[in-house]
């Protein structure tokens, strides 16, 4: 029997959390033991996941590193496994979590120990989502993530934290509860909840539409798509920096991942049928939320709305059902994961110093924070998809894919790119350039070592993958091809039946 590497990645943070729990919480804010344990755990996890990537076979579209044990006797197996689609999300998760842990050491002032526990537990649930190959297990991890995130927003959040935490919790719960009905219905239809088996058994066409809608309700809330995106700006604004980073970088990706793995994989016919709906909602999201982002005076809210717009690209890309589109949307999710994380960290740096997220507080900070301004610029350019940054690759591929399928959608989506440039550059201009008028700003210091190294690291990643995305594309290629082949087979079979 092979070493259960996926389970160890998944449950290692949980074990770390347990040890953090055991550390003595002295009244002072310096809880060294807890910090060291969590940094150690998350880094080890990151390196294991890199090893996972290294030993990952990019030639096959089968699920790898399979683990399977009987769980609920008779009908549910605890099944883990990854393919090209999920492995990069796992690495994204294990990469972002140590960054969050390091960033929160400075910024979280109260109950640091509990915060670290929440982050570590959340990491377990997030990795579990991307590893699980059984619908019930997937649902379990998908929902369980609500508990730590709810607490992160509610305990360490800003002034309207209670409202935001409740909105986040109830929106997501309501969305995913319909998925639970669909999962149970799938069990009674096919006799299994094992994803790989469902891929082969194929769900009868007449059930697909309703089941697709049930899954859609869950992923659309999580992603989020217009018009159920309203929880996101609230949650982002009130969450502490590390919470926002995890939310933007990973939790949102669960929705996109879910669309690819479950909606497209299990219900191809329904997916094709509902494509116009997805396109309509996505282009509304791209245009509308970009316009809304233009008018924000809160930096975090602006980035939150820009996330919704970027996720619009993701859904457009997925539902083009061609190679460029789907690869593009995967790359877009990864790049958004890095860039939005970096942007929220940037806002966090300013917030820690001045305790204001309002754009009008700032102006001319390039004179006091030169290093910060350079890093911020790279991330801003990444957001608007400048060639040479990671952001460009994804958007470009998505647009290429979309042009093949629907020119109108592609044109409207391209307008979104221009709007993105407008809001992010305007934000940059108002915050970084101009006269340094606010006296409070004159005293603040530039990024310190830990902030600087995190941001620089992300910056290098964004530029590196902007020029050379091949390692990522190579990893996902075979799996995406397989997904599209299966999809096309189903569609042609369905047409032939008619």
């Amino acid at each position: 029997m092979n070493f259960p590497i996926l389970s160890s990645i998944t449950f290692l943070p949980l074990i770390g959390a347990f040890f953090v729990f055991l550390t003595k919480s002295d009244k002072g804010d310096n809880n060294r033991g807890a910090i060291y344990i969590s940094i150690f755990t998350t880094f080890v996890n990151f390196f294991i996941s890199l090893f996972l990537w290294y030993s990952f076979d990019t030639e096959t579209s089968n699920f790898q590193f399979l683990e399977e044990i009987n769980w609920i006797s008779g009908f549910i197996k605890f099944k883990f496994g990854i393919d090209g689609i999920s492995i990069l999300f796992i690495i994204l998760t294990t990469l972002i979590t140590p960054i969050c842990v390091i960033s929160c050491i400075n910024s979280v002032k109260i109950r640091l120990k509990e915060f670290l526990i929440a982050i570590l537990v959340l990491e377990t649930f997030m990795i579990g989502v991307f590893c699980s190959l059984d619908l019930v297990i997937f649902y379990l991890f998908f929902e369980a993530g609500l508990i730590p995130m709810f607490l992160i927003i509610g305990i360490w959040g800003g002034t309207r934290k209670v409202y935001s935490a409740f909105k986040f919790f109830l929106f997501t719960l309501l969305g995913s509860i319909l998925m639970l009905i669909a999962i149970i219905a799938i069990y009674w239809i096919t006799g299994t909840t094992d994803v790989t088996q469902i891929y082969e058994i194929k769900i009868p066409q007449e059930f697909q539409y309703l089941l697709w809608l049930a899954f859609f309700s869950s992923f659309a809330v999580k992603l989020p798509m217009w018009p159920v995106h309203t929880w996101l700006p609230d949650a982002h604004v009130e969450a502490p920096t590390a919470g926002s980073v995890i939310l933007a970088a990973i939790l949102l990706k669960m929705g996109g991942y879910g669309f690819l793995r479950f909606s497209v994989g299990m219900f191809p016919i329904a997916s094709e049928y509902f494509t116009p709906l997805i396109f309509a909602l996505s282009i509304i999201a791209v245009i509308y939320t970009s316009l809304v982002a233009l008018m924000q005076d809160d930096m975090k809210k602006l980035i939150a709305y820009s996330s919704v717009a970027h996720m619009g690209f993701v859904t457009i890309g997925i539902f083009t059902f061609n190679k460029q589109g789907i690869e593009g949307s995967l790359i877009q999710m990864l790049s958004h994961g890095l860039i939005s994380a970096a942007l929220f960290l940037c806002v966090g740096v300013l917030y820690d110093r001045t305790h204001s997220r309002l754009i009008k507080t700032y102006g001319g900070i390039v004179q006091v924070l030169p290093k910060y301004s350079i890093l911020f610029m790279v991330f801003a350019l990444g957001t608007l998809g400048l060639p040479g940054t990671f952001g460009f690759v994804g958007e470009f591929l998505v647009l290429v894919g979309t042009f093949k399928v629907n020119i109108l959608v592609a044109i409207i989506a391209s307008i979104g790119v221009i709007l993105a440039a407008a809001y992010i550059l305007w934000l940059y201009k108002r915050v970084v350039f101009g006269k340094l008028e606010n006296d409070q700003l004159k005293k603040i210091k530039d990024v310190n070592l830990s902030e600087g190294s995190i941001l620089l690291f992300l910056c290098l990643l964004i530029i590196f993958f902007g020029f050379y995305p091949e390692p990522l594309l190579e990893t996902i290629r075979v799996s995406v091809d397989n997904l599209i082949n299966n999809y096309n087979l189903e569609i042609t079979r369905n047409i032939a039946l008619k």
Partner: protein
Amino acid sequence: MYELKFIIPEIFLSITIFTLLIFGVFKKNSFEIIYRLTILTIFSLILIILTGENQSAKIFSESFVVDKFSLYSKFLILVSCFFVLLISKKYIIDIKNDKFEYPIIILLSILGMFIIVSSNDLILFYLGLELQSLALYILASIDRDNIKSSEAGIKYFVLSALSSGLLLYGCSLVYGFTGSTNFDQIALMTVDFNTGIIFGMVFIIVGLAFKISAVPFHMWSPDVYEGSPTSVTSFFSVVPKIAGVSIFIKFMYLPFREILTEWQYILVFMSIASMILGAVAAIGQKNIKRLMAYSSIGHIGYAIAGIAAGSENGFKSTMVYISIYVVMNIGAFACILLMKRGNKYVEEIDELSGLSKNHPLISLGLLIILFSLAGIPPLAGFFAKFYIFMAVIESEMYTLAIIGLVTTVVSAFYYIRIIKVMYFDDARKPFEKIIDYKIHGPILLSCIILTSFFLYPSFLNEIVSKVSMF
């Protein structure tokens, strides 16, 4: 004499009750010793049941049945009663309610429940029910100097008597139209459709629904929960529910199994109504005991949904649900019994504010219990609901499933509202530091069960499959 060996637990229980009663009358200040003896009695009963006769039998002209199903229910009743007694002792002494009758009455009600879950005959069932109910009336008003407690007792008594009347009327109708009071005989007679039997069945369902506080026969429970001393409330919310649900299952699947289509819709309605009312009415509550009352109404709604599925999976899921419900509720009430400030026990939800700062471990425990009550994975409460919905969707009752899941979201709102008070609000004065392993132990145990349940979720299923009546 051969038959007597099957009712050893009941005989043992009755003899103990009378011995303890006589002992208590003659000895002054005997609460402490009687309390301990009661715990010992319950413990030895658990042992008797675990080691006793393992074969099924129908004795006393088939009116009393000993099978695995009834043994499992009895086991559950005893274990939960054991823990309820553990957690409530300090409270009883603190409110100066340490009368020796208290544990004895609890034992009496357990005797009633034993008879209920073992009954295979309408008359025996009714006798057991009345024995249990009479004990419960007294328990509700045990704090007799407190006007609220007396009110709770009277209210419970009047309404419960009414429902017993309806139940009895239903029994007489069923007897009149089938010519027998034996469950098996009734099942044989109901094969032919007969309006009289349907009428009788409806009355019986009404009576049973009252005992387990299913909507629309729930009105007594919030008042009784709030008025009774918390020790009694914790008992009410757990132990009679097990007996009630067991006998409910038995009625539906034994005498009335042939007229499934007739009762299914009644149960679906009661289930939907209970889930909705339990979720909606709890939102505005400020008193945590009242909130728990509505919460248990909602939970009973889910349990009935499982029964309404009318299948083997429905039966199993209900038993699993009630077992997990017991674990969660005992934990929750153990936490409520720790809410003591100054010399007074407090019951307002707002009093919990800042609990996480003053008592981090207790609030972590309550957090786990509340998320589990709300049915959030990976805690045990999720699996309880999951099995119920598996059974419901298997029977293709999609409306029931969807309403059930939507009410889950609504009820999640009021559970996380308590969490909000504990974790997000500013701290108040800490509660009195109570160090009592009798309370902390059950909380810890309950949390361990709830969090580790996901490691092997089929554990309860396997047990329940063994006791299945099918």
